[in-house]
Structures are given as structure tokens and as C-alpha cells.
């Protein structure tokens, strides 16, 4: 497509359902949305991953995170709370999108309270969602349900 520059994006998928991560990876690959795709099945592991990225190869800190909400051990909100505590220099450019099967309006409102969260999309992840995100309308909170 015309957005060749965006191929340099690093995207992180956080979902406790491995199959979802696998399938979403394939869709993102197909859409050539990012050059690097990582997936984590738990927010705890995702946070560890982010911390070690900062330590070892900080230049690859994710540009996008697709985050599920309902997960055991730690849910998406707790992840966001912890995420905010990471060094500001790294997290400021990261755009987080909630990707969940929830249609709860309260979840949408809550997601708006986090600076890094730029949108709320309900599963499945579609080309439409990716195009929206690609259109770079960063000032607007995207809701796709």
C-alpha cells in the first residue's frame, strides 16, 4: 500500500487467548500494518517484555499495543496502571487500542481516562479498524464497536 513508512512500526498484542494472538498476527501481517509483531498472553508477561525492551533494545519499544481487557491474574486496566509507571520517555509515543469482546459502555468510558489509550475496538480485529488507526487521526478517540 501507500503507507510504506509505517512498516517500521512495532506492534504488541496482549490477549490471554493464544489463538486470537495468532490470528490477529496473520491479519496484521497481511495488512502490512507493522514490521514487527510481538504477542503476550498475560499483562504480567507483557510488562516484563516492555521492561526488558527498554533495557536491551529501547529503539524497538512498541508503537502500538492492542490490549484485551478481561484476562486472569491481571486485567487490562491493571496493565494500563502499571504501564503508566514506565519511564515517560518511552511510553509517550506508544498508542494503545483496547481490543475486547466487551461492549460495555463503562469500559469505553474508562478507556478514555488513560492518556495512552487512543481507541476502543470490539473484536474481531478487521481491516477497517487497522485503516482507521493508520489514518493518523491521533487527536480523536476512536470507538469501533
Amino acid at each position, binding site marked *: 500500500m501507500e503507507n510504506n513508512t509505517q512498516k517500521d512500526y512495532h506492534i504488541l498484542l496482549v490477549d490471554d487467548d493464544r489463538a486470537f494472538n*495468532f*490470528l490477529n498476527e496473520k491479519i496484521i501481517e497481511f495488512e502490512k500494518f507493522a514490521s514487527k509483531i510481538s504477542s503476550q498472553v498475560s499483562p504480567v508477561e507483557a510488562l516484563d517484555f516492555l521492561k526488558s525492551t527498554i533495557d536491551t533494545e529501547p529503539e524497538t519499544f512498541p508503537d502500538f499495543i492492542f490490549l484485551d481487557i478481561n484476562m*486472569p491474574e491481571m486485567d487490562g486496566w491493571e496493565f494500563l496502571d502499571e504501564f503508566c509507571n514506565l519511564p515517560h520517555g518511552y511510553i509517550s509515543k506508544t498508542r494503545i487500542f483496547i481490543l475486547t469482546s466487551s461492549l460495555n459502555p463503562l469500559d469505553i468510558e474508562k478507556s478514555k481516562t488513560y492518556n495512552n489509550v487512543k481507541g476502543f475496538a470490539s*473484536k474481531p480485529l478487521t481491516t477497517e479498524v487497522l485503516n482507521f488507526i493508520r489514518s493518523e487521526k491521533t487527536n480523536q478517540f476512536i470507538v469501533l464497536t
Partner: protein
Amino acid sequence: MTSQNAQNETANSSNWHKEIMQNLTLLPQSLLESKELKQFLSQLDKKLRNTESDKDLAEHSLRIVEIEKRELERKIAATNEKFDLASQASQAGIWEWMGTTGQISWDDQMFRIYGIENKDLYSDLSKSFFDFVIPEDKANLRNSFSSISIVSNIFNTEFRICRESDQAIRNLELTALIRFDLRSTPVRMVGVCVDVTEKKITEAERLQFVNNLINYNKDLEDFAFVVSHRLRSHTSKFQTAISVLTNVASIEKLRDIIIEEVNKEAKMMDETLRDLAKVLSLRSENHIFESIPLKSFVKTVVDSFTSTDCEFLLKINKDLNILGICNYLSSIFNELIQNAIKFQRESEKLIISIIAKENANEIEIIFSDNGIGIDMEKNEAKLFGLYRKFNLNIEGKGIGLHIVKKQMDIMNGKVRIQSEPQVGTTISLLFPKYKT
């Protein structure tokens, strides 16, 4: 008219006032002819007759007064009767307190409220009034009396008494108007007293009923929400898979993986629907309660797990019975044992202990394991929620404990969980004790 004629007649005329006629016979005949006597008798006759008419008038007036008095009494009696009827109908007793003497007076209804049959035994009501109040409420009641001030001329308080007739604890509500003197000191109180025990009970029942409805509604709402979420997670998986299949799956191997994934998801969706049917049926099933001998019951359930590599320690008194629903109890034990097996620590042999004991009001079944445990601090609030999982990497749908809790609710029981990660989990099932 007779007095006019008297002047022309002799003293022994038979027309004098009867008082004179009676006395004339006592006089000698010679005096009767006297003109002076005649004149005197004439005046006397006149006076007597005047007095007579005054007396008539007075008697007449008296009769009128008597009639009016009777009419007034009749009216008062009617008013009193109305008042008594109203007081009886409203079940309100009437009481009065006089500040000058400190005396309290009650109407009959007040004595009925206090369950006092022989009211002569209670002459000093200002003392008895407090004597009947239950100890816990005495201080409060005294406080409410001592806090009376000119700010409000309405007095209202509630307290409990021990009714004399049957020693029952009754809730009374006292309301009165207060009169103050010029120095703002209360001098008189007149008011009503109502036994509000039944009203309070009904009110509490109504509140309980409303609360139950609210909870039930909330439950249903949560349920609908969780179910829609759960079903959406299945359908979105299908959609994602189909999208990948259409766009990407030119490679044979990838297509197989995706078809396998779709197949797995379809099975999971089927399970979800079955589980939901199970949860829903809990609400509508007919529940047959029976007395269940705990020891033999638990033994039967445990015996079905002999092939698993775990050790059971049972300590249940053979006389112990609980009132419950057989199917539910069996499903609860199965669920707890399966959970313990699923969440056992790899490094240690699984030991499950089931102890039952009788407490003052309950029968407690303590189910403990030495498994991986649950982080209670983090998960306590969502332990019994539908589709809540606490451990990653372990297959679980997060529906088991939800059903256990619902089944215990239906059996009027309680569930308590204590747990420490890497030590184990203890689940207490509490059943109410029924008198046989």
C-alpha cells in the same frame, strides 16, 4: 285572686293558704274574729303565696338546668365514646404527664399495650413506665426525655418494652405535644403511644423482599452481560479466523491450523451454551430437600476418584446429617475435588482433607487442599463471578465456583474461601442447622 278576696272574709275563711289553714285550728275561736288577725293573716297569706310561686320558678329553673346538664353529659359521653373507639381502632394509648407533680396517667388502651391486666397494681406510672423498658433502651429513652427543649413542642421517641402479660419484647412509639411555662420548662405533655412491633416486622420483611428483588435483578443483568460477552468472544474468534482464512491462507499448513482453531472454538462455544443452560436451570429447578447422611455421602463421591493420584483425609462424624439437595451436594463435592486436582502443585502429592463439624448454629464442612492456591488479596471480589479465572495456563472456564455458590445459596448455605498462594486453599461450606 284569693288574696284579694281574703280582705272581705273572716279569719277562718277556708280560702287561706293551706299552711295558714292548718294552723288556724290551733287558735282560740275568739281570736279568729279579730280584725288585726285577719289583716295579719292576709299579709301572711300573700307572702306565703309569693314564696310558693318563687319556689315553683326555682324548681322549674332547676329542672331546666338538670335537663341541660343531662344533655351535656350525654354529649360528653358520646365524645368520650368516639375518642375511646378512635383510640382502640388506632390501637393508640393516650397518656399524660403533669410537670408540677411528675404524675403520669394512662387510658385503658395504654394498659392493654403494656399487657397489664390489673392496673391497680401500678399506681405510680412514672416509675412503672421506665420499669418495663428493656435495659438496652433505658438510657436512650431517658436521654430523649432530658433533651426536650422549647425548640420543638413535639416529642417523639421509640423504645422497646417487655410486655407484662407474655414477657414479649414490643416496639413502642411515643408521640406527644409539650406545653412549656414562661421559663421554657415543660409543664405538661399529652400524647399517644402505639405498639409498632408488627409494623416494624412488616417493614423489615418488605425491605428484605425489595432487596431480594434488586439483587435478583442485578444478578440477571450481570448474567446477561457476562453471557453476551462470552458469546461475542466466540463469534469474534470465528470472524477473525474466517478473515484470515479468506485473505491469508494460501499456505496449506496455515489453513489446517485455522480450521483446527475454528473447530476448537465451536466446541468451546457448545460448552458455553451447555454451561449457561446449567446456570439458568438452577433458577427454575424444583428443589427437593432431604436429610443427607454426610459421612456415607462424601465417601461415595470420594470413591469415584480412586483412580486419581491423590490422598483423601476424611473426618466426618457418622451421625452428622445435613438438610440439602442431593444433586447439588454431589455436584459441589465433584467440582471442589476436580478443582483441587486441576490446581495441584507439581512438586507435591495432592492431599485433600474433608472435615465436618457441628458449630452452635451451623454444620461446617471444611474442604482443604495443598494446591497452588489463590491470591486472595487480588481475587477475593471476583471469586464467585461467572467466567472468572485466576490462573493462566490452566484450563478452566471460570464457571465452577459460580455454580457452587449459587447451589449453596439455594440450600440456604454459605461458602467461605481462604487461600494462600503455594500453600493451599480451604473452602468452608456452612449449612444451617435444623432442629429435628
